[in-house]
C-alpha cells in the first residue's frame, strides 16, 4: 500500500523536479534544503511522510541512487534511473557519506581516463584536471550520457549537439521561475565569489583555461561550493572555450550552467554561437540556439550592440548567424548623437565654422615625441637623475655601493627561487580545486615579478610601512604592468601608432586639416584602435596578491649579520621585520627594514630615482578622452574619474549614461591635457642652488637633513636623575620629529625638482582627469601646476604669445596680485603700484639672490620672481607688444563658493560682497565679515561680556578668513573653532588662557554674520542638506547630474570590514564601496552642499575652458583660478563671465529638484517599502517642492564686474 503511494508520489516529484530551479547563493534555504528546489508541492510532502515511515527502504534506495549516479558518469546506461529518481527526496540528509565514497571512486576513474586520453596540461605533469562535470539534474545528466554510449569521455558531435539541445530546451519551463537574486550577500561569501571570478578570468588571460574549467567543475560538483558559482563565472569559462572553438568543453559548461538552475544570458548565447561559428557547426544546432535566444527575449542585433566584442569575434559570430539567416547583417553602428545640453549648444553646433588652436610644434617633432613617450611606457618605469648634491666618492661610499650591488644579486636569485617554489605549491593547490593565486603569479614573467619586488624593497622608508599599504602597492604594480603588457601583445601598439600619427595632423602646426573638429571628435572619426577589454581587480584580490608577494620578500631577503665581515662567514639575518605597531586601540602590522640596511642605503647614496611612467608628465599630447576608461596615457590605464581604490558605483553610472552626455567633460579634460608646458629654467636653477645648499624654509625650499635640529646632549651622564633623562628624551623626540617632517618635505621637493630637471629641455603635457564631483586634476602627482608656489613657478606655457597692446599691463597686474600687497586697490591702482616699484622689480629679476630681494617678501615669492623676470624682459624689449611671453597669468575667483551660492539664490547683498556686481574697488568678503563680527563684539563688550572685552583689537581679516572660506564648503562649528583657535594662538600678545572661550565666541559670531550677509546661501545649504538627509535615510546615496551632464554619486557608505586572512597577518580594511551597502547618512548629508557647489564650479570651469578653446586660447585652471597668456586675459575674462551667467541662467535648482524627484520619489509606491520609508519619501517630495526662495539680483550684472575674477 505504502509502496504504491510512494510510486505515485515519485512520478509527481519527477515532474516537479524537471521544472524546479536551484536556489542561488544567499537564498534562505540551506544547502541540503536547496537540493530540491525552493518550492515543494503538497504531494511531495505527502510522499515525504511516507518515506519517513519506510526508512529502511529509503536507505537501500539511497545506495542504489548513488550507484546509479556513479554509473551515469561512467557513461553506462542504466534503465533503472527513472525508478530510483523517486527516492531522492528521502535521502537528502543521509546520503552524504555514500556520495563521498563514490565521488572519490569516480574521481579516480576520471583521472585514469584522462591519463589515457593524454589530456593532461603541459607543465603540470603529475596532476590531472577534471573535464567532465557532475550533473545534478537527472534529465540533463541523462542527455549528456545518452550522448556518449560508445566512447566514454569522448562523445561525438551530434551527441554533444543533443546534449546542448536538451540544455536549451529546458528553458521553456524554467523561464518564469528564475530565483530572484538576493540583495545582500554576506561579505565573506561575496569575497569568495570575487576571488573565484578573478581566478577564472586570470586563468583565461594566462592561458590556463583547462585549470579554470577544472576548478569550475570541482565547484559545481560539490553542493556547498556550487553556491558560489554565478552566471558570470560559467560565462567566463564558456567564453574561453568559445575563443578556442572547443565545442565539447563548451557544451559541458553550458550543461553545468543549466544544471545549476541559472538561465543563460546574452553573453552565454554569444559564447555558444561564437564557438559554433568557429567550429563550423551544423545549421540545426545554431538554429536551435538562436531560436531559444529569441524566445528568451534577446534580439540578434543585441549581440553586436550590447556586448563588447573584438573585430575577430564579431566576424566569427556573424559567420555562425549567416548560416541560419543568410540575410542577417549586423546593425550599423549609429553615429553617437551630439550632446544636447543647452550650455554646450555652441560648442557642438556644426553650422558655425571655427578653427581650434593648433599646437606650436610641427608634425615631425610631435611624431618623434610620440615615439619617445611610447618607449617610456613600454619600459614601465623612468629612471631620473637625482638633483641631490652628489656625495664625495670616498672609500666608504664605493664600498657601500659594492656591497649593495652584490647583495642585490643574491636577493634576486633568492627571490626567484622562492617565487618558483610558491608557484609550484599554488599550482598543486589549484589542482585540488582551490582558486589560488597561481594564475596571478603567471601574469608577469618571474624575472619581472622579482624586479617589482626589488624596487619596492628599495623604496621602503626607514621607519617601515604598514603591510596593508605595501601589499596594496605591490598588487597594483603587478596589475598595472600586466595591463600594459596586455596592450603590448597583438597589434594594438602598431595600430595606435598609426592612428596617433593621423591624429597629430589635427594638432600639428604645419598641417592642413579642416580643424573644425575637436580632438576627441577627430580621434573618434579616425576609428581608433580597440584596446583589449580590461577589468580592474577587486581590492581584496589586489591585497591578497600583494600580501603573498610581500611575504615572499620577508622570507627570501636576508643579509649577513655583520656587513663588514666577509660574506658567507657569518649567519644571515632577515632584512625585513614584521612588527606590530600600536596606534590607540588598533594594532597595525608593519614591515620595517633592518636599520643596518637603511644605513647602507644612505651611505651608498645612489644617484637615481625611479618613477612609474604614470608619475611622470607625458612627452607627447595625451590621448583624447573618449570614454570613462580610455584616454590620457598611451598604454597605462587611467580612469576618467579618480576615486578611492575599489569604488565602482560611479564607474557604473558613467558607463550607463549615454556617451554623448559625457562629451562636455571629455572634451574639457582633453583640452586641459593638451596644453603644452615647459620648465622655467631660470627659476629652476635658482631653486636648485638653494636646494643644494641649505634650503630655505621661508621660500618653501625644504632644508636637507643635515640642517635638522640636533639634541644638545646626546648621551646622559651615567648618574643623571630620571627627571633629567625624561627632559633629554623629550628633546630628542622633538628633534626626531622635526627631522622626520623635514625628511618627508625634502623628499617631495626632491622628486619634484628631479623631475623638473629631467624635463628641463623638453616640452611636456599633463594629462588630466577629474574627481567624483567633476573637479579636474593633472594625473602626474609630483610635478604639476596644482602644487605650491614653488611648483607653479617652475612651469610655463611651452607656446609663447606676443604680449599685444595690453599684455604688459596684465603682466604687471598679475605681478602685484602675486605679491598680495594691493588687494583692495583697483586695477589701475595696482598698475600704478607696479610702475612705482619697477626698480625693485628689475632688481629682483637681475639679481635675485644678491640684490634687494624685493620678491622674497611677496605672498607667492617664486611666482613673483618668475613674473619679475618676465616683466623685465618685456619692458626691455624693443617693442614690448611684440615680446613673446610664456608666463601664465592668473585670474582668481573671489570666494568662488559664495559666488555660486549668491548667484543661485539671486542674493543681492551677498552678490555685492563677492563681486558679482560691478564696483570701483574689489569687495572683500573676509574684511566685511570681520567688520561685522567686530561690531557685534563691541556691543557685547559694552554689555560687559568678558570675552568680548578681551578680544578687543584682535579681530582681523586674517582671523576669520579661513573659516569664512570653508563655511561654504561645509566646515562645522567644531572645525571652525579649531581654525580660529589656531589663528589666535599665532597672535603672540593674545592672552592664551582665553583661547578656548574666545575661539568659541568668535566662531559663533562668524557664523551669525555670514548667515545675515548670505541669507539665501543658508537657505540653499539648508535645503540641500535636508534633501540629502531624507534621501540617505531612505537608504540611497545622493545622486545628481551636473549642468554639463556628468552623473555624480556621493561615495559615502557605511563601512564594512573586509578581512584577507592567512599568511603572516590578516589584513583588515574597511570598504565603503559596495553599492548594496547602506549610505553613511551623516556624510551624505554634510557632503551634499559642498559637493554640489563643487560640481557647479567645475561646470563653470569646463564651460570656460571649452569656449576659450573655441576662441583659440591656451587655458588651464587650478579649480577656481584660471590661467592663460597675458595677451588673452581680456578674452578669457569675457568668456568666464559669459559662461557664469549662462550657467546660472539655467534653472539649476529646479532641475536638481526634478532629477531627485524622478530618481527617488517616482516609483517609490511601486517598490515595496516600509511605512517609515514611505513617510520619508513623502517628506522628501514636500522638501523638493518647496525650493528656497530667490532674491532680486540681476545676473547680467556679472558681465560688467571687473573683480568677479581678477
Amino acid at each position, binding site marked *: 500500500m505504502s509502496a504504491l503511494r510512494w510510486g505515485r508520489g515519485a512520478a509527481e516529484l519527477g515532474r516537479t523536479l524537471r521544472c524546479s530551479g536551484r536556489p542561488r547563493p544567499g537564498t534562505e534555504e540551506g544547502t541540503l534544503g536547496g537540493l530540491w528546489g525552493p518550492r515543494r508541492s503538497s504531494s511531495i510532502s505527502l510522499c515525504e511522510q511516507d518515506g519517513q515511515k519506510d526508512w529502511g527502504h529509503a536507505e537501500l534506495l539511497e545506495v542504489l541512487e548513488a550507484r546509479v549516479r556513479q554509473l551515469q558518469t561512467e557513461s553506462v546506461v542504466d534503465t533503472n534511473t527513472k525508478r530510483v529518481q523517486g527516492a531522492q527526496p528521502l535521502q537528502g540528509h543521509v546520503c552524504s557519506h555514500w556520495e563521498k565514497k563514490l565521488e572519490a571512486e569516480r574521481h579516480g576513474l576520471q583521472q585514469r581516463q584522462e591519463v589515457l586520453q593524454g589530456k593532461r596540461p603541459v607543465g603540470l605533469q603529475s596532476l590531472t584536471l577534471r573535464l567532465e562535470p557532475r550533473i545534478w539534474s537527472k534529465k540533463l545528466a541523462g542527455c549528456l550520457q545518452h550522448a556518449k554510449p560508445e566512447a566514454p569521455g569522448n562523445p561525438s558531435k551530434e551527441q554533444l549537439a543533443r546534449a546542448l539541445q536538451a540544455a536549451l530546451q529546458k528553458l521553456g519551463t524554467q523561464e518564469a521561475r528564475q530565483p530572484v537574486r538576493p540583495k545582500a550577500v554576506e561579505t565573506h561569501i561575496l569575497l569568495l565569489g570575487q576571488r573565484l571570478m578573478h581566478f577564472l578570468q586570470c586563468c583565461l588571460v594566462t592561458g590556463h583555461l583547462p585549470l579554470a574549467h577544472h576548478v569550475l567543475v570541482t565547484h559545481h560538483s560539490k553542493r556547498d561550493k556550487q553556491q558560489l558559482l554565478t552566471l558570470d563565472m560559467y560565462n567566463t569559462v564558456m567564453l574561453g572555450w568559445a575563443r578556442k572553438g572547443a565545442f565539447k568543453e563548451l557544451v559541458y559548461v553550458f550543461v553545468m550552467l543549466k544544471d545549476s538552475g541559472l538561465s543563460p544570458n546574452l553573453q552565454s548565447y554569444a559564447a555558444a554561437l561564437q564557438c559554433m561559428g568557429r567550429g563550423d557547426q551544423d545549421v540545426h544546432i545554431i538554429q536551435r540556439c538562436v531560436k531559444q535566444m529569441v524566445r528568451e527575449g534577446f534580439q540578434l542585433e543585441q549581440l553586436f550592440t550590447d556586448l563588447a566584442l573584438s573585430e575577430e569575434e564579431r566576424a566569427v559570430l556573424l559567420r555562425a548567424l549567416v548560416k541560419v539567416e543568410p540575410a542577417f547583417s549586423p546593425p550599423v553602428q549609429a553615429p553617437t548623437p551630439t550632446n544636447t545640453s543647452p550650455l554646450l549648444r555652441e560648442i557642438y553646433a556644426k553650422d558655425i565654422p571655427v578653427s581650434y588652436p593648433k599646437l606650436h610644434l610641427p608634425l615631425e617633432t610631435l611624431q618623434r615625441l610620440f615615439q619617445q613617450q611610447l618607449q617610456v611606457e613600454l619600459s614601465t*618605469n623612468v629612471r631620473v637623475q*637625482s638633483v641631490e648634491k652628489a656625495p664625495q666618492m670616498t672609500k666608504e661610499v664605493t664600498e657601500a655601493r659594492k656591497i649593495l650591488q652584490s647583495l642585490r644579486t643574491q636577493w634576486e636569485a633568492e627571490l626567484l627561487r622562492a617565487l618558483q617554489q610558491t608557484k609550484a605549491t599554488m599550482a598543486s593547490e589549484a589542482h585540488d580545486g582551490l582558486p589560488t593565486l597561481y594564475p596571478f603569479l603567471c601574469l608577469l614573467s618571474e624575472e619581472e615579478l622579482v624586479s617589482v619586488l626589488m*624596487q619596492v624593497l*628599495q*623604496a621602503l*622608508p626607514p*621607519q*617601515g*610601512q*604598514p603591510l*596593508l*599599504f*605595501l601589499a596594496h*602597492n605591490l598588487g597594483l604594480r603587478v596589475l598595472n604592468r600586466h595591463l600594459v603588457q596586455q596592450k603590448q601583445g597583438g597589434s594594438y601598439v602598431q595600430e595606435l601608432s598609426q592612428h596617433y600619427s593621423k591624429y597629430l595632423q589635427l594638432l600639428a602646426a604645419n598641417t592642413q586639416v579642416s580643424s573644425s573638429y575637436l580632438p576627441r571628435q577627430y580621434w573618434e572619426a579616425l576609428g581608433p584602435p580597440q584596446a583589449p577589454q580590461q577589468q580592474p581587480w577587486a581590492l581584496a584580490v589586489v591585497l591578497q596578491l600583494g600580501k603573498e608577494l610581500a611575504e615572499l620578500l620577508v622570507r627570501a631577503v636576508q643579509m649577513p649579520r*655583520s656587513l663588514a665581515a666577509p660574506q658567507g662567514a657569518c649567519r644571515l639575518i632577515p632584512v625585513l*621585520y614584521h612588527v*606590530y*605597531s*600600536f*596606534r*590607540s586601540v*588598533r594594532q*597595525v602590522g608593519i614591515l*620595517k627594514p*633592518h*636599520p*643596518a640596511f637603511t644605513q647602507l*642605503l644612505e651611505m651608498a647614496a*645612489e644617484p637615481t630615482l625611479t*618613477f612609474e611612467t604614470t*608619475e611622470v608628465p607625458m612627452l607627447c599630447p595625451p590621448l583624447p578622452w573618449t570614454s570613462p576608461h580610455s584616454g590620457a596615457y598611451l598604454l597605462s590605464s587611467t580612469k576618467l574619474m579618480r576615486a*578611492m*581604490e575599489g569604488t565602482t558605483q560611479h564607474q557604473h553610472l558613467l558607463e550607463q549614461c549615454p556617451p554623448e552626455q559625457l562629451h562636455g567633460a571629455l572634451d574639457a579634460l582633453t583640452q586641459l591635457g593638451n596644453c603644452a608646458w615647459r620648465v622655467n629654467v631660470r627659476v629652476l636653477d635658482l631653486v636648485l642652488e638653494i636646494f643644494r645648499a641649505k634650503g630655505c624654509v621661508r621660500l618653501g625650499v625644504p632644508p636637507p637633513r643635515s640642517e635638522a635640529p640636533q639634541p644638545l646632549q646626546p648621551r646622559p651622564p*651615567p648618574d643623571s*636623575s*630620571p*627627571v633629567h*633623562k*625624561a627632559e633629554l*628624551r*623629550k628633546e630628542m*623626540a622633538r628633534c*626626531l620629529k622635526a627631522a*622626520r617632517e623635514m625628511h618627508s618635505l625634502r*623628499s617631495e621637493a626632491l*622628486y619634484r625638482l628631479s623631475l623638473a630637471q629631467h624635463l628641463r629641455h623638453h616640452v611636456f603635457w599633463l594629462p588630466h582627469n577629474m574627481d567624483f564631483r567633476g573637479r579636474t586634476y593633472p594625473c602626474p602627482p*609630483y610635478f604639476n601646476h596644482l602644487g605650491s608656489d614653488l611648483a607653479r613657478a617652475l612651469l610655463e606655457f611651452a607656446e609663447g604669445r606676443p604680449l599685444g597692446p595690453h599684455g604688459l599691463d596684465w603682466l604687471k597686474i598679475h605681478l602685484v596680485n602675486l605679491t598680495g600687497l594691493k588687494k583692495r586697490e583697483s586695477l589701475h591702482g595696482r598698475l600704478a603700484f607696479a610702475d612705482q616699484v619697477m626698480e625693485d622689480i628689475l632688481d629682483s629679476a637681475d639679481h635675485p639672490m644678491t640684490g634687494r630681494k624685493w620678491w622674497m617678501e611677496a605672498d607667492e615669492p617664486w611666482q613673483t620672481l618668475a613674473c619679475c623676470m618676465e616683466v623685465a624682459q618685456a619692458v626691455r624689449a624693443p617693442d614690448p607688444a611684440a615680446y613673446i611671453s610664456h608666463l601664465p597669468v592668473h585670474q582668481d575667483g573671489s570666494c568662488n563658493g559664495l559666488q555660486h551660492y549668491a548667484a543661485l539664490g539671486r542674493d543681492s547683498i551677498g552678490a555685492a560682497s563677492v563681486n558679482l556686481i560691478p564696483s570701483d574697488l574689489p569687495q572683500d568678503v573676509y574684511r566685511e565679515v570681520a567688520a561685522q563680527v567686530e561690531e557685534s563684539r563691541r556691543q557685547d563688550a559694552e554689555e560687559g561680556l568678558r570675552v568680548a572685552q578681551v578680544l578687543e583689537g584682535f579681530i582681523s581679516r586674517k582671523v576669520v578668513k579661513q573659516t569664512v572660506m570653508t563655511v561654504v564648503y561645509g*566646515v*562645522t*562649528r*567644531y572645525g571652525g573653532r579649531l581654525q580660529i583657535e589656531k589663528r589666535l594662538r599665532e597672535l603672540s600678545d593674545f592672552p592664551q*588662557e582665553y*583661547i*578656548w572661550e574666545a575661539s568659541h565666541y568668535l566662531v559663533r559670531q562668524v557664523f551669525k554674520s555670514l548667515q545675515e550677509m548670505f541669507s539665501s546661501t*543658508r537657505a540653499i545649504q*539648508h535645503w540641500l542638506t535636508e534633501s540629502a538627509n531624507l534621501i540617505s535615510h531612505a537608504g540611497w546615496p545622493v545622486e545628481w547630474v551636473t549642468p554639463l551632464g556628468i552623473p555624480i554619486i556621493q561615495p559615502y557608505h557605511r563601512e564594512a570590514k573586509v578581512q584577507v586572512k592567512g599568511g603572516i597577518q590578516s589584513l*583588515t*580594511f*574597511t570598504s565603503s564601496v559596495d553599492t548594496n551597502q547602506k549610505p553613511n547618512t551623516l556624510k551624505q548629508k*554634510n557632503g551634499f552642499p559642498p559637493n554640489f557647489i563643487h560640481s557647479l564650479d567645475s561646470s563653470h570651469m569646463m564651460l570656460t575652458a571649452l569656449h576659450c578653446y573655441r576662441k583659440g586660447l591656451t587655458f588651464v585652471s587650478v579649480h577656481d583660478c584660471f590661467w592663460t597668456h597675458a595677451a588673452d586675459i581680456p578674452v578669457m575674462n569675457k568668456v568666464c563671465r559669459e559662461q557664469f551667467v549662462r550657467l546660472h541662467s539655467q534653472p539649476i535648482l529646479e532641475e536638481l529638484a526634478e532629477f531627485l524627484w524622478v530618481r527617488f520619489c517616482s516609483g517609490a509606491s511601486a517598490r515595496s517599502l516600509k511605512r517609515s520609508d514611505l513617510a520619508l519619501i513623502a517628506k522628501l517630495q514636500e522638501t523638493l517642492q518647496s525650493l528656497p526662495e530667490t532674491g532680486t539680483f540681476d545676473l547680467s550684472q556679472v558681465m560688467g564686474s571687473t573683480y568677479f575674477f581678477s
Partner: protein
Amino acid sequence: MWGPALGLPPRLTLSVLGPGRCCILGSGASMRKDLRGRNRRGFSDFHPQPLSDLDCEESPSWVSKSRSEPTRHVTSKKLAKALVGTLLGHYRPSRQLLLECNPGPGILTEALLKAGAKVVALESGKTFIPHLESLRKILDGELQVVHCDFFKMDPRNQELIRPELSSHKLFQNLGVKAAAWSAGVPLKIFGILPSKYERKILWKIVYDLYSCASIYRYGRIELNLFIGDREFKKLTATPQRPDLYHVLSVLWQVACEIKILRMEHWSSFGLYTESGHLEKSKRRDPLHQMHQNLHLVRMTPRKTLFTENLNPINYDIFFHMVKHCFGKRNAPLLHHLRSLSTVDPGDILRQIRRNPGETVLRMYPQDFKRLFEAIEQSEETVFKWVYDESLDDIVI
C-alpha cells in the same frame, strides 16, 4: 633611492591607519554619535536646535562628553571616617599634603580636615566649588580648593581642555617642591576613577610614570584610587590568571608596589549629575559596571623602577615590547623577539633562563623587565631594537 611612489603614501586612505597619531585618550567617532543621540533624547524638549546648527554640529571630544556622565563621590560619613584612617595611616596628619580629586559634596574632605590633614581639593565640577569654599570657611582647616580636573590634567597630546591647568602650575601654586626619585613619597593623592574611563586614565598615568612626566616630575607620588572590579583584577593579575593578565598588569606591577586597602560596594557611593544633584540610583537604570565593587588601591612607584637599562629614555621600547608580546599571546616568546630585536633571541632567552617555546603566560611582570634589560645590555650589535618611535602613537 628608487620608486618614490612608495616613499610617500599613495593617495588613498585605507582606514586601518587612521588619522595618524592619535592620543591615548582619543575620542572615537562612535562616541560622537552616542553623544548626539543622548543630546537629542535629553534636551530636545527645552533646547530646540537652531536651524543653523544642522550642518555645523558641535563635535564634542571626550572632555565635553564626560560632563554629562554622573560622577561618584563618597557620601556616607561612615565610609569617610573609615577612609580617613586608611589614608592618613600612622603619619601625623598635618605633616603630609593630601590631594583629593573631585571631592564633590566634600563629605570625605570634611572628615579629613577634622582629622587635621592638610587637604587640597581638586574639583572639576563648577557646581561644587562654592560649597567646598564654604567648607573651608566653616572648618577653618587647612583646605585649598582648586578648580581643575586631575584625571585630564597634562593631556599628552596637548589638546585644549577646560579648565586649563597644568600640574606644573598647580604644584607651583601649592608650593610643592620636586623630590628626588630616591627620596620618600612627597604627597598623596586620593580619587575615584571615573567609571567609564578607568582604562584610559590608568594608561595615561602609567605613561606619565615611566616618562617621569606630569605629577611624577615631583617624585614618587603615591596614588590611592578607587578602581572598579574589572580593571582592578586586570591590574593585579599575574600569569596565574591568564584571562586577566595583560599589558597594563605588567607595566603597573613593574612600576609600583600595589597594595589593596579595602573593598567597597558601589552602593556606598553617591552618584551626582553635572548640575550637582544627587541621583537616585533607582530612577536611573545604573550602568552595568556600577554594580561592581570598588577597590581602594595604593600605588607607590618603586624606588628601583629606573635603572641604567630601563629609564625615561627608553621606556617606550619597553612598552612596545610588552604590547607586542601580548599582541599574540599564544605565540612563543622566541617569535616575538625575532620581530622586536635584531639581537639573537636564542642567546637572550638563554641568558634569562627561559625556554624558547614559552609564551607570555609564563612570564611574571618582573621577568619582562629582566628580558628587556638583557637585550639592552647585549653588546652584540649597534642596533638592538627594530622598534622605531614612529611605530607607536606615544605623543610627547
